[in-house]
């Protein structure tokens, strides 16, 4: 890692419109909030933006409202604050649990919700120093034209590793996005696409400003597999939201991070509805997960392990959440 940051200009707009306008026409401008992802990458020579647009002075971005009318979480809300918010914790346990697994306490004090949603994808061939990548002829994601993970393929397999996204996806959250044309809202799941090189469906200069959630409360949880209990990005992260009526699953949503280039909502869970959670349902869930995750050799931990771990976490979460669910409707 080169200890040197590249030279850049820093702008400190006071409002979202100003920030978006400042980005206009600047091909190499980047938004900066907590910096826990961006600055580390810039020190490694991953990008040489001429302009950084510091968002920390924009008051609106750190709004956090959580109540019966629904929840709005500004993109600039620090993850430590999100994790500590009692209303968020009681309505959306999965979100609190996910927030608490992000990196380590020092990072969470700086890192923001928007930053975690827009986390760059990661790969063992990409998150290396400039010297390292140059010695390896760079890679498809940046400055090179070969994916070292899947040399025969045409796409980048770098992995999305944010912890908050799967929780927000199962909670049915929407992301608010600001651009020159104003604001738009999309489901959090639709913010992403399965391409490690361009995994965010954001136009140039667009900025995620907030996420909004239905009021809840929701029976939900998040589980993360990693080697160490702090710092590490997920080898697999699973969020589950479910409802049980009269002992049978009446709603089930499962979202997964750390295995693909995007966090995604597991498909096919409707076939498990109306059934009591037992070994048969869990075995089918296991199959669904193992079939839909696409872990590649983007981490030092074996890809197949991440597949097995994702399924194990999903089983465990569904089992424990349905076990604690009230049986009466």
């Amino acid at each position, binding site marked *: *890692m080169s200890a040197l940051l590249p030279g850049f200009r820093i702008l400190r707009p006071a409002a979202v419109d100003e920030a978006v306008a400042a980005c206009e026409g600047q091909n190499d401008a980047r938004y900066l909030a907590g910096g826990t992802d961006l600055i580390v990458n810039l020190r490694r020579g991953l990008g040489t933006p001429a302009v950084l647009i510091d968002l920390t002075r924009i008051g609106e971005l750190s709004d956090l409202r959580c109540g019966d009318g629904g929840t709005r979480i500004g993109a600039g809300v620090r993850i430590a604050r999100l994790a500590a918010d009692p209303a968020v914790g009681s309505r959306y346990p999965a979100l609190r649990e996910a927030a608490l697994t992000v990196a*380590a306490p020092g990072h969470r004090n700086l890192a923001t919700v928007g930053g975690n949603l827009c986390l760059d994808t990661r790969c*063992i061939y990409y998150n290396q120093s400039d010297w390292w990548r*140059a*010695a390896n002829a760079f890679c498809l994601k940046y400055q090179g034209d070969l994916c*070292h993970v899947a040399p025969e393929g045409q796409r980048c397999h770098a992995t999305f590793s944010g912890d908050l996204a799967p929780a927000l996806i199962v909670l049915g959250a929407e992301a608010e996005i600001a651009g020159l044309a104003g604001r738009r809202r999309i489901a959090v799941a639709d913010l992403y696409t399965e391409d490690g090189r361009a995994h965010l469906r954001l136009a140039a200069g667009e900025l995620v400003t907030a996420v909004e959630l239905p009021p809840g409360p929701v029976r939900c949880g998040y589980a993360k597999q990693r*080697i*160490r209990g702090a710092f590490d990005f997920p080898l697999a992260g699973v969020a589950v939201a479910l409802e049980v009526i009269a002992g049978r699953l009446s709603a089930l949503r499962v979202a997964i991070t750390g295995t693909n280039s995007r966090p995604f909502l597991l498909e096919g869970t409707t076939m498990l509805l109306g059934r009591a959670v037992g070994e048969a349902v869990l075995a089918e869930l296991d199959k669904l997960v193992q079939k839909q995750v696409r872990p590649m050799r983007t981490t030092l931990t074996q890809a197949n392990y991440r597949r097995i*771990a994702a399924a194990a976490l999903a089983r465990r979460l569904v089992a424990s959440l349905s076990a604690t669910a009230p049986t009466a409707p």
Partner: protein
Amino acid sequence: MTDSKGPERGVPLIDGIDKVTGRARYTADLDHRGALVGRIYRSPVSHGEILRLDVSRARRLEGVVAVITGEDCRHPYGVLPVAMNEFPLARGKVRYRGEPVAAVAALDAETAARALRLIELEVRELPAYYDADSSRAPGAALLHDNKPDNLERAVHHVFGDPAAGFAAATLVREAVFDCAEVNHAQIEPHAALADYDPLTERLTMQSVSQVTFYLHMMLARCLDMHESQIRVIKPFVGGGFGARVEVLNFEIVTALLARAAQGRVLMELTREENFLTHRGRPQTTIRLKLGLQSDGSITACECEVVQRGGAYAGYGIVTILYAGALLHGLYDIPAVKYDGYRVYTNLPPCGAMRGHGGVNSRHAFEVLLDRMARELRLDPFTVRRRNLLNAPTRTLNDLMVNSYGLGECLEQVERASGWHERRGRLPAGKGLGMACSHYVSGAAKPIHWTGEPHAVVNVKVDWDGSVTALTGAADIGQGSSTMVAIVVAETLGLPLDRVRVIAADSALTPKDNGAYSSRITFMVGNAAIDAARQLKQLLTAAAARKMGLQPDEVECVGGTFQALRVPETALPFADAVKAALVDRGTLTTKGTFTCPPESQGGKHKGGAVGSTMGFSYAAQVVEVSVDEATGQVTVDKVWAALDCGHAINPLAVRGQIEGAVWMGMGQALCEETRYLDGLPAHASLLEYRVPTSAESPPIEVHIVESHDPYGPFGAKEASEGALASFAPALVAAVANAIGIDVDTLPVTPDRLMEALVARRRQARLRALGGQRP
């Protein structure tokens, strides 16, 4: 976190306040006004012949003051006089990705970085080898022309009659173990500040060294300077664990740059460069065969060790010798055959790391012993007790064992862990395992044998009544300066805060062999006591004269000279000093310590490695929970007992034992280096997974004191011995928890999952087989 089962609690390190308040200045914090920024250009290829190296464009860049290459130093350097094959900057060939090839000194970091990009290197690539097998294969290209088969050293030792031993055994088992390469990951990154004065032609070097004397010697050698023109100072150092025992290329490069620039150069390596400089514990494959009688007595041991050494010799020969020598000294074994192979590969060189050489072979030994105990239906503690040594004794390979507290260590952890009551009765997925280990208290034969004592300490007392101990011993965080202060204060009868320690500045302090092989407490401690005793004699005589008494009628207690039989007659320490200085002035006494020849190992080739005046002994019990769904192992608790002879500072001893346990836990659970075609994919503290506080289990420390006859106040080493028993105890605990025997380290979730999946598959196949008619 810890209980206080030792004797008295001890004292905080004397430099602790400086460290926790940030007042302590580490190398990169030193006043480096006017210093140029040094940076290193590193090889992008694993193995090749240098065809062209053009630094002319870098030299011409404005702001660049000096650029140096292999042409600027024609002397190879290294640890062993017989194996100096590394140049500070590559000459002719490069042998690993990241090897230093050129270096620049510039006015600022940006310019230095720009200059590196202007350097042009053309290499004719040669086949590269990233594992010992392919490197040793017939026809492989040689890394070093004088080393056929890319073998740095083969060791073949036989003691006793192994064939007869195996013939006499009830049970003989053989297994192969694989331990991944690990790195010290000391918190302070490497740095050096070199100051060359062109007028006096003198060099002042400040660096992160553990052994400033080696650095001093190698700087003189590589810069063609006389030793007397060089001063080496060790500032505060943030950990070493062996990473800084040998002189490192960047240190010499910094000095070469300073001279080329005729000024000061500060070199700070990034974390990635720390991993490229490496010198950690090599990846090791161990094939081990043990013979046991039905009562658990060991009849024979046969061990083959292959170490993937990396591209240069470094400490390699010592490491491969330790791996065999330390099969001895823990248990009573009548026959040992050892074959060791240290192999060159196109990776960063390995070196010394806490528990040097012994850790991986000890791991294999303890794990196999545990499995065989199970097969013989013997308790693991029973098997260990069956094979205890009787001190004093000499091992088969002629190592001295003068004190031996292993039996007491076993009792302590057996009782404290509730071993017999709890093992086998824990809930599903939980298990207990145990293992033992040992380590030397200083190599009895130093590598650079000069005939000098093994340690020299000066103690000075001056007109102001201050007592200053001067030692070359490098305090690198292990607390050696505190140890010196304590033994001097205790010997003189002074409160601890009356003693200052000046350490590791070649212009002020006597030469010391440095912080390696856990030698400082034993050797420097003894030398410090010797110096303090001499000073005490002088002061006591002067005090007695002043008090009108005989020297044996006076004693210094708590900083006051007291007449022994007349309680009211006393003389303050400062007055005794004034009396002692009359006619003589400032007093400096010199204490020494020398390991006698009979402690320096056997006469066989390599017999000096492993020799020591005293071994520390450790026993450990580890309790784990295993999550079979994810393969995750959690360490719930550790009980560690260490026989350190005598705890000079129980608080520091506890800290060292906890540190050793914790470092062992890292190697056991999650630490490993991983190279992708020779590029270190692990070269950050994110990918090189040192355990965090989240994984840190409660560690219950038990200090055992066997009172070594030769140690200072009976003390032995306390910082390395407890490391090697962690990993085998963990592997035994996993086996106890889920019935899976793990042969590889670290026990990461993916490795364990592979074993779990294989077991499930076998169970399915068995079930199918059982259904057949």
